[in-house]
């Protein structure tokens, strides 16, 4: 219990274990694409720039459930 309380001062080991699991730069590469998240706003932008819309749809949001 004392170790548990001391950890309130900052648990470096917990930080390390969490950091080791976070996505790597390679795993986050697809986030470099400037994804739009609002379809109606994307339509408005496509009109403005006169380009087609590329839509990536998944069962579960690719930026939130993959």
């Amino acid at each position: 219990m004392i170790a548990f309380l001391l950890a309130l001062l900052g648990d470096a080991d917990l930080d390390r274990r969490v950091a080791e699991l976070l996505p790597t730069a390679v795993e986050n590469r697809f986030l470099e694409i400037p994804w739009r998240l609002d379809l109606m706003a994307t339509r408005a932008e496509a009109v403005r720039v006169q380009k087609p819309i590329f839509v990536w749809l998944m069962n579960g949001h690719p930026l939130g459930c993959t």
Partner: protein
Amino acid sequence: MTTEFVPFVGDTHVLQNPKNVARDWFMAIASANLERVTKGQTAQGFWVIGPDGTFYGYNNNRSKERVEQMLDRALAQFRQSPPKFVAPTREELAAPSATKAPQGSSVVRVHARVRPVPVGCADSNKRVSRDHLWISAEEVAALRGKKVPSSLVGRIARFHLVDNVRGEPDMWSAAEVRKLEVLKSAFVGATARFEVAFSLATEGNKRGYEGRLEVELKSDDRNRIVRFRGFASGTAWGAGTYTPEPPNGKFNLVIAMVETEDEVAKAVPPQGILWGREYWQPGVDPIVR
């Protein structure tokens, strides 16, 4: 993709099922061009469409070559037969589509991995998962009052201690939470720390996950989380409905949780929000020692 197209990413659960303006607009296009959608099946994949709803291409194959071929064909067709560049109405632009996090709530990013990945199992087990955990201001207030809220522990157990490494997971029902026990908790100033033992399994034990969760968090006086470190580690087994090919037998599943405030986190709700009120009130009462 970034120079010739306007890239949009979304969830079929938002664009196929609930009634909203974006769904109505998209489903008119999807139903007219992908027969399986008219039978209630998924529209997931890659689409190229004009801002007026003109269809230019679709592909649900993720190989780089197939996607590039589809994009090239669609772009050529777009140039040959451009759409009408009619902007959406003010009402369409103002209409909400995805569920937004409640005012004052905090968002935590959640990532799961199989670690170590057993030799010989499917490559899909090498992936990292992504989801968001929503925490209400009331729950943070409870923590500041030196109490671990049951709703938060229950929500994490049912909707975030899941094996979503290979895709969309099955969430745990309240009945599948076999054990949920807050073993330790401590509070100093704005910092809280707690440790939870959990055992989650389907009837007949075909799929399960049991282990320990450690959480350390710090909040501000507006009941917002400013720092969150969560780490779950334990033994998992079995495949979900849409997550085939897990490692054989039992394997180690580890889950990390860290605070976030970026735009994606604010705009993309947790997968568990599809369970509506159950996400906020998960209906399981952890034992608190």
